[in-house]
Structure formats: structure tokens, C-alpha cells
């Protein structure tokens, strides 16, 4: 309503955010939170071994350094930038919601930032002084200590973000308190953290195992020892991860189902919830097999096979990340703002007087026979385009074709009846925010889109039309 609305008509704005966020989470969990402690432990073990066998110790140290090199390169480029990228993408996809969230979470993000700065400082010290640290035992011990600090701060950044996520999943506390602290008291906070921590450790193990498999020469006599060590690391975290996953899994329905606005959501939730269980079991089984094989006979691990657990753990994480997306709908901020960026409180006004009158970014105010299709496009942009495209991912035309079949042209009247009360049966959809004339324009636009498909370009390409809004100034003297 109050912003020019960036729009990707093929990929959809939600997919954009999802892609950036998933990449970031994978790098964060796999190459920072879990990786830093694993490398530090490897380095420490190498240091211990060097006391009795300097050659062996050196080989272990060198492998640990190589692992850290890869983590250093990726986290300080793609990792850091996708973190900022979530902001950039999310504020393009839904500026109204990000603009609101930041006012409430400013402190959280600010403290997150301070810890992030420290994390980056530690990772630079840790990696860039590695070679120097091999000069003396004293330097080495101090270096290992930096590894420990890096591990702690990497974990802390995650612990804070999880608090923010937990808060956002709990609609009640936003409305009542508008304070962050409740996020950390949220019943889902600890299960989430207990789940994410071992998963990160495990993921880091699978990635480190794969890298070691490829980087170290087959004939290197130290390779089996290191592979065995990392496999054991995976195996060690496996039961914790499994326990965490189930704890989280048990907590979700208890805390969340009550929040689903329409009980029907429960059923859709159940289907999805079932697939989650399958993914969890498969991933744990794969990790277990690799962990056992690696621990007991590391030489039998074919290196190309090591790609599988890495991919499996990515899928695992991705599935769990979708959970939040699922639970928050139809809101983007629980009970406060719908996914279309419109406040719950503003709905009566828009439904009574229409949406278009209230936005400066559409040339239309009222619907006429002449402007119906063009105004329908404007309504689509305001009410639907945050989640739907015309013909791309989550296409509005295809959604209706799935309901009515594509043998006959879409019927604007039937769609009108549907949109008007769809939120009663499709719990994840917000109610239609405009008035009847706008609904009419919208459905005519959709029907027209089916007949003569036309890409809807965002303001990044076609700019925005601006109009003056008529309103009665409030007399401030009163």
C-alpha cells in the first residue's frame, strides 16, 4: 500500500527470500556454528598427538587448517553476504513487514550485530594467524583458544536469531507485549536451539568428511585416522540431533496447532507433518550408516558417496525451515499483519472503501468499466503479488485452473464467490482486503490473464504511477 512493490513474476518474491535464506542457513550451520568447534577439536587433537609424534601432529594440524581455509573463504563471502541478503530480499518482498519488524527487533538485531562483528574478528584472527601459531607450543595453545572463542560466538549468533524466530512464530506475544524478551521464554525456543545445535555439528561433520575425502591423498597414511575421527564426531552428535529433532517435533503441534486460525489448517498441517517424519528418519539413517562405517573402517568410505550425507542434511534443514513459513500463514506477523502486508486493523477501512483509494502507487481510485482490467492488475499487485505471480511459481491463474479445471475459461463470477470467503476453508489465505468492485476487477483481471497471458512487471522495470490521495486532514488543535 505504501511502497512501490518490487515483483518477480516468474520466481515469485517468496521463492527469492527462501533461496537466499536457505543458502545462508546452510553456510551458517554447516560451515560456522558446527564447523568452528570441529576444526578446533581437530587442531587440539593434532596438538596432543604432536607431543608424541610430531609428523602425525603436523598432518592433523594441516588438514584442520585446510578445512578452516574453506570455511573462512565461504563464510566471509557468500555466508556474510547472504546474511545481509536476507534483509535485502525480504525488504523487497515485503517492505511493510520488514519495516515493522525492525522497529520491534532493533535491539535484538543490534546485539546480534555486535556478536557478529566479534565472530568475524575471531575468524580472521583464527585463520590468518594459523601458520604463525605453529612456531611455538605457546602460540599454538593460544591459537586453539581463539578457535574456542570463534566457536562460542558463532553459536551465540545462532542462539539470538533463534530467539527472534521463536518470537515471530508466537503471535500472542507480539500483540500483547511487543517485547523481544518473550521470544526467549517461548516454549519453542529451547527445543529449537537443542535441535539446531547438534544438527549444525552433524552437518559440519558431513561436510568436513567430504572435504577430507577429496582433499587428502588416498595414500596419505594419516587419512584414515582423520576420517575416523570426523565420522565419530558425526556419530556422537547423531543421537543428540535425533533427540532434538523429536523434541522439536513433539513441541510444534502443542504450541502451534492452537494458533492455527481455522481448525482446517490442522489437517493440512498433518499431511505436511507426516512428510517431516519421513525426511527425519531417512536422514538419520544415512548419517548413522556413514558414521558407523567411517568410525569402524574409514578406508571403506568411497569419497563420492560422502556427497550424499551432505545433500541429505541440506534437505533435512530445508524441510525444517519450511515449517516457519507454514505456521505463520496467513500472517506475516502473527495476528497483526497479513502476508499481503496489510494490517489486520486496517481491513475494515479497506473493505468498506476499497484499497486503491488509499495507495499513492496506483493511478486508479475507483473501478469503472473502462479501467476494470488495468485496475484489476493494481488490485492484484496490492493484495496478491507478495505471494502469487501471474503465470510463474504460485501462479494465480494455475491456482484457479486447479480448482475449476482448464477445459473451460475461468469464470469471473465463480472466482468472486470463491475469493470472498476462501479464508474460511483455506486457512493460509488472508481475507480479500478490498471492496466488491475491486474484487470484481481482480477476478476479471485473472480471467483476462488466462485468456491473454501478460507478464506483470514490477516497478524495478516499469516504474510506478503516482497519484494524489484525497484525505481530510485531522485538525491537530482538537
Amino acid at each position: 500500500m505504501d511502497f512501490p512493490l518490487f515483483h518477480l513474476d516468474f520466481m515469485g518474491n517468496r521463492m527469492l527470500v527462501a533461496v537466499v535464506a536457505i543458502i545462508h542457513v546452510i553456510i551458517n550451520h554447516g560451515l560456522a556454528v558446527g564447523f568452528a568447534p570441529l576444526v578446533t577439536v581437530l587442531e587440539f587433537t593434532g596438538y596432543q598427538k604432536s607431543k608424541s609424534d610430531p609428523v602425525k601432529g603436523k598432518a592433523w594440524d594441516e588438514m584442520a587448517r585446510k578445512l578452516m581455509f574453506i570455511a573462512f573463504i565461504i563464510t566471509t563471502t557468500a555466508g556474510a553476504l547472504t546474511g545481509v541478503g536476507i534483509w535485502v530480499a525480504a525488504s523487497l518482498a515485503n517492505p511493510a513487514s520488514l519495516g515493522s519488524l525492525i522497529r520491534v527487533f532493533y535491539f535484538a538485531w543490534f546485539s546480534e550485530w555486535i556478536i557478529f562483528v566479534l565472530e568475524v574478528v575471531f575468524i580472521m584472527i583464527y585463520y590468518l594467524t594459523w601458520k604463525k601459531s605453529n612456531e611455538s607450543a605457546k602460540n599454538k595453545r593460544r591459537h586453539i583458544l581463539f578457535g574456542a572463542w570463534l566457536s562460542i560466538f558463532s553459536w551465540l549468533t545462532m542462539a539470538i536469531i533463534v530467539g527472534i524466530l521463536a518470537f515471530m512464530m508466537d503471535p500472542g506475544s507480539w500483540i500483547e507485549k511487543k517485547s523481544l524478551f518473550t521470544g526467549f521464554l517461548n516454549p519453542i525456543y529451547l527445543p529449537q536451539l537443542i535441535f539446531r545445535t547438534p544438527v549444525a555439528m552433524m552437518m559440519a561433520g558431513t561436510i568436513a568428511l567430504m572435504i577430507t575425502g577429496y582433499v587428502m591423498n588416498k595414500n596419505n597414511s594419516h587419512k584414515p585416522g582423520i576420517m575416523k575421527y570426523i565420522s565419530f564426531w558425526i556419530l556422537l552428535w547423531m543421537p543428540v540431533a535425533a533427540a532434538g529433532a523429536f523434541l522439536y517435533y513433539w513441541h510444534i503441534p502443542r504450541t502451534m496447532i492452537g494458533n492455527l486460525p481455522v481448525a482446517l489448517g490442522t489437517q493440512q498441517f498433518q499431511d505436511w507433518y507426516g512428510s517431516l517424519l519421513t525426511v527425519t528418519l531417512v536422514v538419520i539413517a544415512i548419517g548413522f550408516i556413514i558414521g558407523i562405517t567411517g568410525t569402524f573402517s574409514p578406508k571403506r568410505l568411497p569419497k563420492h558417496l560422502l556427497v550424499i550425507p551432505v545433500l541429505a542434511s541440506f534437505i533435512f534443514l530445508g524441510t525444517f525451515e519450511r515449517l516457519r513459513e507454514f505456521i505463520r500463514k496467513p500472517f506475516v506477523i502473527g495476528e497483526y499483519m497479513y502476508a499481503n502486508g496489510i494490517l489486520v486493523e486496517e481491513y475494515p477501512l479497506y473493505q468498506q472503501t476499497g484499497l486503491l483509494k488509499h495507495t499513492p502507487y496506483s493511478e486508479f481510485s475507483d473501478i469503472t468499466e473502462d479501467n476494470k482490467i488495468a485496475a484489476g492488475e493494481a488490485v492484484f499487485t496490492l493484495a496478491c503479488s507478495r505471494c502469487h505471480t501471474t503465470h510463474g511459481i504460485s501462479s494465480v491463474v494455475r491456482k484457479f485452473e486447479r480448482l475449476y479445471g482448464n477445459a473451460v475459461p475461468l469464470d469471473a463470477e465463480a472466482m468472486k464467490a470463491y475469493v470472498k470467503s476462501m479464508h474460511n476453508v483455506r486457512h493460509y489465505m488472508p481475507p480479500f482486503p478490498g471492496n466488491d468492485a475491486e474484487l470484481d476487477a481482480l477476478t476479471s483481471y485473472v480471467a483476462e490473464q488466462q485468456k491473454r497471458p501478460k507478464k506483470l512487471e514490477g516497478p524495478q522495470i516499469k516504474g510506478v504511477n503516482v497519484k494524489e490521495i484525497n484525505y481530510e486532514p485531522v485538525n491537530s488543535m482538537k
Partner: protein
Amino acid sequence: MISAILNQIPVPKDIPLPLPLPEWLLVVILVFSFLMHILFINLMVGGSILTFWYEVKGLKKQEYDRLARHISSTITVNKSLAVVLGVAPLLSINVLYTLYFYSSNALTGYAWLSIVPWVAVSFLIFYLHKYSWDRLASHKPIHLSILGTGIFSFLLIPFIFLTNINLMLFPEKWGEITGFFDALTLPNVFPRYFHFITASMAVTGLFLAWWFGRRKFDADTAFAPISKEWIRKQMLTLALTATGIQFIIGPLLFLTLPSKGVSWGLFWVILGGVTIAVIVMVQLWKLINEPEKQFGRRFYISVILVAGIVSFMGTGRHIYRENALKTHREMMAERTKAHWKAVKQAHENLLLPQVEGKEGSFLPGQNLFQTNCAVCHAATTRLVGPSMAEAAQIYRDNNEALKLWIKNPGRKRMDYPAMTGFPHLSDKQLTEISDYVLQKEWN
């Protein structure tokens, strides 16, 4: 007529939540953290250009190659600090100028979004350059091309930021802009850009003069036959020259500022900065001509004075922004107020008794039907599901079968989507619905 539409100033409404901190404090955080961020950006850009310069010189004289390599090792550290220190100003500008910043972001959408992969890839290129120094020692053209690509990226990325932050100040232009390149050509983007690049060289010169001149650092051995003294002089000269050039670009920037944000306050603040710049230039000149003392008081005073220039200019930048947006912010506040009054009115309207034209049915299932079923089922025509006339025919006198179906349906017709189940409805509700469906005349 079209121009009449285009010249409108969009007046959106503000976000109806309070700022998390007093505005002045947020402004202090914004200005300070931005200057910290830009300092490291300066060092990163300036350092990469100098690396290139000395690596090219190193093709003939090997010692320059060593110098270039040493400078390059500062880039990757400075770039990491630049990124993390960029988060705080980003956060602050998001919260202080939400409506302006997000609007200009959307209008330059693709370019703005591209900074994420672009910066990540540029950084990777710099790592590649740094860690391939030995391996590509005998393939210098390739090594230099890698660096060249990285610098090219670094030099283009600021355009995106500047365009965005500039566009944000001119809501009256938003209706005219179609895409990034349009916004790029608004007055002031290019002067700002060159002001920034030149500042990068000045700051980098000063930094490297200190970096190579540190007492602990044995530059004489590291870069022999180049002497520590020579490097120091080079770097200070760079700082002096760049500062001098700012005396041409600076006024150009000031004169091309659209007048709506220029005020006497701004003028005096800028003049304050310029005055210090003159003193800095004198001090730098004296430093260059004082070979003995490496880092005496004069150097540190110069650094403090430069920090002074930067704070004056940073403040000036903020004053301009505030001036430029003042009127628009007032308009926005007024509209926001009116809007929330209208919202309140709309809520009151809801409480008015509803004027219902038709007399409601006496069947209790009707309401349930309207909220749950009417979405997909009409009386005689196909909507999502089959018509009720058809369905009532199938279940005639068979309430229980209909109830069972509603509660847990499946898919009977392949040309229709499967029906959603209603397991949450109570038995009583199901009975009411099925009674309604089977008793009503659907036609």
C-alpha cells in the same frame, strides 16, 4: 495529462509503530556507524587500486611486486570489516527512513538485489587473487586480469548504493523513474561517486603511510631496495594529492546538490570541514618534507584532523538528508494521522446494525453452509465442486452418508479437485449442514 500524473508526489503513510530509540540517538548511531563502515570501504577500494598499480610496476622491478602483495593482504581483512560494519548503518537507515529507503530499493530493485551476489563474487575474486600469487607468478597477465576484474567490480558497486541513497531523497522523482539506470542519471550521483573514490585514495594513503611506517615493521628489508622512507613519502603524497583534488570535486558536488535540501546550516558545516581540510593539507606537506621524524605528533594530529573532516562531512550529509525530506515527512505524518482516524471510523461502522435485505432461512445449517461450503458449491452451477442440486440428488434421504463424506471426503470425479475434509465440525454441525443441503430446494 500524463505529465500531470507523473509530477505527483507520492504521500504514503508511515509505519504505525514507535521508533525503538529516541530519534537523535538513532541518528548518532547511523552517522557514526556509517562513517566506520565507509572508512573500511575506502581502505578496501583504495588498497585494491594501489595493489594493481604496484603489481604492474612489479612486472619490471620485483620489489614492487612484494610491496603489492603486502598491500593486497590488507584488502581481504578490510573488506570483511567493511561488510560487518555495514550492518549497523543498514539497520539504522532501515528504521529511520523506512518509507524512503524501501521505496528507492524497490524502484532500483534488480540492481539493488544484485549487490548480494555481486559483492560475494568480488570478494571471492580477491581471495583468488591473494591465494594464487605464487601459483600464477609466471602468469602475471592472468593474475593481473583477476585483480582487474575485482577492482572493476569494486568500482561499479558504489554506484548502486549511491543511486539508491540519492533516489531516496527525492520522492517527487519516484513516479518518473523506470529502473536503475534512470535513477543513476539523477543529478548528483556522479559527483558523489568521484568524491567517494578520491576520498578512498586519501584515506588509503594515510593508512598505508602508518601501516608501512610502524616501528615494528621492517619495511627496509621486506621491500629492499625500496626504503621505508620512500614508501612513507609516496603514501603521504597520495593522501595530499587526493585531498587536493577534493577541492575541485567537493565544490562541484555542493553546487550540483538539488537546492531543496541546501541551507545555511549545511553551508557552515561543510565550510567547517573544508577549513580543517586546508589545515590537513598544510600538515601533510610538512610531514612529507620532514624525513627524520617518522611518526611524531604531527602525523597523529593529521589523522585526528582527518577524522574531524569526515565527521563534519558526515554531519553535512545528514543535514542535507533531513532538509530534503522535511516537507515530505510532514505531509506523510499528516496523512498517517488522517488515515488512522478513518480506520477508527471504519471500525465504528462495523458496529452499526447490519441492514439485511433478505429474511434469513430458519434452517440452522445455512450459516454453516455459507461459511464452509458456499466457497466451492453453488446451487445449480459448477464452481470448484459440483452443484448442490446434483449433490442433493445423490444423497437424497441419506443424511449419514453425506455427513461421513463431508467429514472425510475423497475424490470421486477425476475432472474435479479433491474436496477438503472438515474433521473439526461436530456431529451436530454436520447434521445441521446435511439437513440444510438435503431439505433446501436447489434451483
